[in-house]
């Protein structure tokens, strides 16, 4: 494994102008608002957070499907936003995406064969005699799709089978980095487990790097090495997966973890929840200072005015909370030991 990050995101911002209210006044949604991190080759990097916090926008920025308002995304050391169209097209082979909704992300008029083959045709890859058929055979095999499905259409399949087809398509060109945006959220648990196991196996087989976007901490814990927690466009905590679960440092992470139900009634019965009051505020009018302060039980006066920056609160553990409430006393969320 090399020591160079495969992906480097620096000061990334994406602001959308939107009409506000009935009179059409312009407002700005700071969907992604100053995000920085780097991902090492073959790492699984998770981005978690609640609906609307900017996860999908961040994913689209990483894939250069969206232009940034500010900041840069470097893939293997090259700034994606500075590449010419031709160069970007070539780089796209290495950057692929798996979407949440296997129902709408596959073209309903294409057969499974056409769906998987299309990227090979576009990039003129595996073009020698018999190579394409061999490649498709291989993809079917590793993704657990039966040969007999090749001539069938997406609507003939269940959600899990469709997601397998989407994954086979994403892997067709042997990418290096895969952005998976809620790839199992639409699936039933028993099927979700199949796909998660598949993604794990494929990572080894293809030496993949994942940026895994999810709102589900349980899924992320199972699959990912490091986790970034987002709130209203900003990363509030970033740490190794185990550390984040055992020793969360940000009050928002603490509350999020404590809200996740644990599939074990004997634990649930003894658990105390930290209930956050109110909803996530509108991204059109985020609270001043620390965006989380109106819902935070540790907030002090300074939190209302000073926006915190992401600091290394412990080794390789980054937190955007200067109050540091868990320095002496570990967070409640970590106290669910039996």
């Amino acid at each position, binding site marked *: 494994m090399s020591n160079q990050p495969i992906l480097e995101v620096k000061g990334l911002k994406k602001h959308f102008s939107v009409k506000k209210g009935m009179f059409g006044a312009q407002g700005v949604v700071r969907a992604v608002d100053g995000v920085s991190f780097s991902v090492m080759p073959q790492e699984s990097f998770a981005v978690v957070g609640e609906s609307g916090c900017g996860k999908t926008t961040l994913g689209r920025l990483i894939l250069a499907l969206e232009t940034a308002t500010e900041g840069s995304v470097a893939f293997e050391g090259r700034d994606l936003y500075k590449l010419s169209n031709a160069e970007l097209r070539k780089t796209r082979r290495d950057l692929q995406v798996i979407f949440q909704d296997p129902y709408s992300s596959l073209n309903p008029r294409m057969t499974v064969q056409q769906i998987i083959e299309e990227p090979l045709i576009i990039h003129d890859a595996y073009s020698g005699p018999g190579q394409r058929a061999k490649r498709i055979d291989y993809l079917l095999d590793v993704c657990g799709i039966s040969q007999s499905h090749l001539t069938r259409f997406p609507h003939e399949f269940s959600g899990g089978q469709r997601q397998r087809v989407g994954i086979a398509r994403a892997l067709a060109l042997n990418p290096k980095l895969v952005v998976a945006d809620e790839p199992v959220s639409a699936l*039933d648990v*028993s099927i979700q*487990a199949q796909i998660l196991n598949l993604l794990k196996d494929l990572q080894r087989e293809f030496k993949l790097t994942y940026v895994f976007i999810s709102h589900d901490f349980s899924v992320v814990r199972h699959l990912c090495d490091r986790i970034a927690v987002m709130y209203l466009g900003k990363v509030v905590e970033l740490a190794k997966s185990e550390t984040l679960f055992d020793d969360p440092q940000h009050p928002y992470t603490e509350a999020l973890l404590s809200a*996740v139900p644990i599939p074990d009634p004997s634990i649930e019965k003894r658990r105390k929840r930290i209930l956050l009051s109110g909803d996530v505020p509108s991204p059109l009018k985020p609270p001043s200072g620390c965006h989380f302060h109106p819902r935070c039980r540790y907030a002090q006066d300074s939190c209302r005015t000073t926006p915190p920056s992401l600091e290394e609160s412990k080794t390789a553990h980054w937190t955007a909370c200067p109050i540091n409430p868990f320095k002496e006393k570990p967070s409640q969320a970590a106290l669910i030991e039996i």
Partner: protein
Amino acid sequence: MTLQPVLSVKGLRTHFFLDEHIVRAVDGVSYDLLPGKTLAVVGESGSGKSVHALSILRLLPEPPAKVVAGEILFKGKDLLKMPAEELRQIRGNRIAMIFQEPMTSLNPVLTIGDQISESIILHQNATQEKAWAKAIDLLGKVGIPHPSERVNDYPHQFSGGMRQRAMIAIALSCEPDVLIADEPTTALDVTIQAQILELMKELQKEFHMAIILITHNIGVVAEMADEVAVMYAGRQVEYGSVGDIFKDPKHPYTRGLLNSVPSIYTRKEKLEAIPGQPPELNKEFPGCPFVARCGVAEARCKDQDPPEFELAAGRMSNCWKQESESLKTRHRHDAGRAPQAPVLS
């Protein structure tokens, strides 16, 4: 004194009679629901959870839907045999229901206050004024800040979590004996889900109502349930207390389901996924519907329908493997006076 069940479902089967085929959406569900308790109904998408709930309130379009067998006893009276007028007095009043997507069940052109007070006036003969005051009171109870102002809002002015609170306020307006909640938090963020579940627990204590909680989230089951009914392909395949189901699951599907859930609590190297897909419901299975995905199937599982084996009081499994432990055996279609299935021409 033993508690009488407030609701008893016996051998419920609800089918859809379509042009080409019959969909056996619910094909054998039986349980007793006790006052003040929560029954979780779990199962994969399409396993019949919602159709079962809609059957209880007779909210399904008939045709194509038809309850072909079973009894649904509310305080001893069969809802399936009740005249429409009598049923209307129970629906939304003694038995209330909330759905996954509150936006589709709220009326977008009426204020939240109108909708809550309408329900109160309809079921309790209250005056407009009294109903409005109660609406404000209820909004406060379900945790809407500044209820006397927000009561004038329209549904689109509420966030997803607030809409679900408003739905709960409507459902509770008549202090029902039974609340059926069909995936009430599935569309919500996890911190909002935690708020809503907490609210349901508090209100359950206060009103002493029984809850049927439909969910596919195993964590939510662990948090909320007293009893659990597991559904697969329209059939209730296992039933028991929440402790028994999690500690000692009997049916291979329940075991697979519990093993396939990731948890924030532990990291497993590999999840134990259930192979294959659930079967399509438009075919009749001569044997066990789980046979194609089951790791311990026997020869007879393919063509012999496993009956319901009662393993202890309130503990049931529909798997041939439990035959030897069984105290009592009942066919899943048995329900005392089952009405006749219609004859298809």
